[in-house]
């Protein structure tokens, strides 16, 4: 085969070289366009770019970049002003008055008023936000707007989490949309959920579904102007493709979702750093027992199963050391340390003791070699869960409990576990936040056929009464006493057991951007203060 180049006969090699050179040139042009831009890899498209019914990691991680809320979190998870420059709390803790900034504007340049914030809380967060629904929605009596820059929130009963960035009027429950664009519309299907006119530091530019979402700096932002010019979210579903794009430098940050099998390899390459860190949310795989199924009504059985699982092995073999063996019933984050009851009795790994407990409880080894058979259902939506299920099966075999693993895709698993309550034990990714309202998970009122509700069927009158008392208790000392007792009940009754306090694996390209102030990278999906990230030049 011969090729004509410039009228002369040439080798095909010339053509190949030409194409190669063009491809390389294209590469350098593309790289040049990426200055002042942070490219972040996420695993899937968000449903929308809006606080309306935001409920998945991707909705939050992308959507909340475009919005301001009354307050944000500082690196110590304390509230810091955002749209509200200050606030007052009445002595009886029933009235919160927020004083809004006067220079805050939406991305179309129009001013943000207290009416916009009121609308966002009442019509979006309280009606469609499930985080708000579990606490805030039940205590807010009214919201008033005496003027354009004052918002008064009156409560039916004191709510100590009111200023908490997770459960209070932070990003989850007061992300501000423009009332004029939403009022009188079907808010879930409002077109501005996809082309937002936001209120935050970054302005929406482009969303090519399945490919990328681009934000640019909003020059009229009411706070300190972001140093980054653009933020690009690239959607890379395949974990290995994500790791390779990070290795090549096409993305500079993978928040929380570096494949664990790739961590060691990436850390050995120059300029790459993968850090393990907790988050305010804490995602904890938990083995839940179904109280409706024999033999899990028996407390001794639940205790024996827990004692039969080597959680440290799960940390090492499944999470490659990125976590701690599960203890307690609340996420272990720096923000929950104040109320974590370390004195509540824990069940240690001990297969011999587990076997004896089962013998005493009336479950001896039968002629077929097993004490009893159970099914373990897990979602394939989390790659670690199947590996954990296999190790648990192996562990429980030692105490003669036969486990059948049912691997279900995420939708089917939701249906089996939360809708039909059709499981013996299930590995559930627990993500309930670092604050005491997370304890509502095991409340009797929460036994309902809804995702992430109390699917175990565990019901304890003392626990319920303590929760109801705790949720409006403003005296910190008394509150701590109540939550301590609640944790003791959970340790005793053991409706579920945390398997691994898993940490998130975040990949960062070193030397390109500052990581100051502390916590920019590690606080979590809601509190990624990308407006404070600065390119290093």
């Amino acid at each position, binding site marked *: 085969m011969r090729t004509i180049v410039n009228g002369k006969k040439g080798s095909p090699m010339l053509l190949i070289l030409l194409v190669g050179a063009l491809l390389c040139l294209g590469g350098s042009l*593309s790289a040049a366009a990426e200055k002042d831009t942070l490219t972040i890899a996420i695993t899937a498209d968000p449903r929308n770019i809006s606080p309306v019914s935001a409920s998945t990691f991707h909705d939050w991680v992308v959507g909340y970049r475009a919005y301001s809320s009354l307050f944000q979190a500082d690196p110590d998870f304390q509230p810091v002003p955002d749209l509200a420059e200050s606030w007052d709390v009445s002595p009886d803790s029933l009235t919160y008055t927020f004083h809004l900034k006067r220079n805050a504007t939406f991305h179309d340049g129009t001013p943000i008023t207290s009416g916009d914030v009121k609308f966002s809380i009442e019509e979006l967060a309280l009606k469609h936000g499930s985080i708000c629904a*579990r606490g805030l929605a039940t205590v807010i009596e009214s919201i008033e707007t005496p003027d354009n820059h004052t918002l008064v929130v009156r409560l039916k009963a004191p709510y100590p989490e009111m200023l908490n960035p997770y459960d209070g009027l932070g990003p989850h429950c007061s992300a501000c949309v423009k009332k004029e664009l939403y009022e009188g519309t079907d808010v879930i299907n409002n077109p501005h959920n996809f082309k937002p006119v936001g209120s935050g530091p970054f302005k929406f530019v482009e969303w090519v579904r399945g*490919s990328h979402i681009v934000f640019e700096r909003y020059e009229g932002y009411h706070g300190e102007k972001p140093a980054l010019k653009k933020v690009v979210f690239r959607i890379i579903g395949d974990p290995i*493709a994500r790791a390779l794009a990070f290795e*090549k430098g096409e993305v500079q940050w993978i928040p929380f979702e570096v494949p664990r099998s790739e961590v060691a390899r990436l850390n050995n390459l120059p300029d790459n750093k993968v850090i393990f860190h907790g988050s305010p949310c804490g995602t904890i795989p938990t083995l839940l027992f179904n109280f409706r199924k024999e033999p899990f009504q028996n407390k001794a059985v639940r205790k024996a199963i827990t004692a039969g699982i080597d959680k440290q092995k799960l940390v090492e073999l499944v999470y490659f050391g990125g976590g701690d063996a599960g203890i307690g019933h609340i996420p272990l984050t720096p923000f929950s340390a104040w109320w974590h009851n370390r004195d509540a009795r824990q069940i240690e790994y001990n297969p011999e003791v587990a076997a004896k407990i089962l013998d005493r409880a009336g479950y001896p080894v039968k002629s077929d070699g097993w004490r009893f058979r159970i099914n373990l259902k897990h979602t394939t939506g989390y790659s670690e869960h199947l590996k954990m299920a296999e190790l648990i099966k192996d562990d429980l075999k030692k105490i003669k409990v036969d486990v059948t693993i049912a691997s279900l895709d995420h939708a089917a698993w939701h249906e089996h576990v939360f*809708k039909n309550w059709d499981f013996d034990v299930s590995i559930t990714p627990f993500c309930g936040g670092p604050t005491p309202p997370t304890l509502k998970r095991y409340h009797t009122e929460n036994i309902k056929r809804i995702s*992430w509700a*109390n699917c175990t069927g565990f019901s304890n009158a003392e626990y319920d009464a303590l929760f109801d008392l705790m949720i409006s208790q403003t005296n910190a000392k008394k509150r701590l006493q109540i939550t301590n007792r609640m944790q003791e009940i959970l340790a005793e009754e053991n409706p579920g057991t945390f398997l691994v306090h898993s940490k998130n694996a975040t990949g960062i390209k070193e030397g390109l951007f500052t990581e100051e102030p502390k916590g920019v990278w590690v606080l979590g999906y809601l509190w990624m203060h990308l407006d404070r990230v600065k390119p290093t030049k």
Partner: protein
Amino acid sequence: MHAYIARRILEAIPLILLVLVMNFIILHIAPGDPVFLFIQGGGGATEEYVQQVRQMLGLDKPLGEQLFIFMANVFRGELGFSHYYQRPVVDVIAERIPITFLLVILSTLFAATAGIILGVFAGKNPYSLVDRINTIVAVFGYAIPIFWFGQLLILAFSIYLNILPTGGIPTRAMGGGSFLDWVRHLVLPVLSLGVIQLALAARITRANMLEILGMDYIDSARAKGLKENTIIFKHALRNAVLPVITVISVNFAFQLTGAMIIETVFSWPGLGRMMFESVFRRDYPVLMGLLIVMSVGVVIINLITDLIYAYLDPRVVYE
């Protein structure tokens, strides 16, 4: 010819309807409730809210009624509203059709062209070096899992040689989107998706060329003193290529399936990846819309194949 095309299209309609009805039923009776995926968050939602969302998604009605409404909407040209994307299915799919068909058609063209060229030279020179290379390429191409081949290509061209992107499409807002930029993003996915078809085309062309080059009419052509290239490309290849076209056409549906894998490996925002994700999200309206697009696509490609057949082989006449 026009009557033939019209008849083929009419014949395809019941087939597509059957595909839709069967898939509608299969999808809806499979375990997994889209409402539970729609409402997640912290578990604080009420059962009334769940019912409200079920109603909004039209999933509160009996399955038969849902099917009836769906089919009526299809005839009106409406494909419903995506549960996940919260947008009309037509819009969701329309923005991805060009990107998938670009990938599938380019990979098919690449596979057909390279495979036929390789097959011709192998068939012309049996048991030569070219023939051996053809055999190796064919066995390798047919045996290698395409997702792994894709990852190997990324390692070689993106990580070690650093000349091509690891995946994705050009980002217009970032100054991308030139023709060259598109070429750079297309090279690896096209190679990966085309590798199986290339292997098939190469092997079939070789076998046919071997058979045809031994026929009497080829000997006659040589006796007449025709140039070797004319014999090969005009007289032999024209006959040898017909079965290749059939195979490539039949495999078009497999190419769409392969796109599902390749689009995931290369973060290519096409229909295949959307279908893969929509299955897990139980986004019934999007899945049904995709099935319509893919069924119609396969029918059209088969029709085009038959027409190409008639063009290449004068003995074939459609009436």
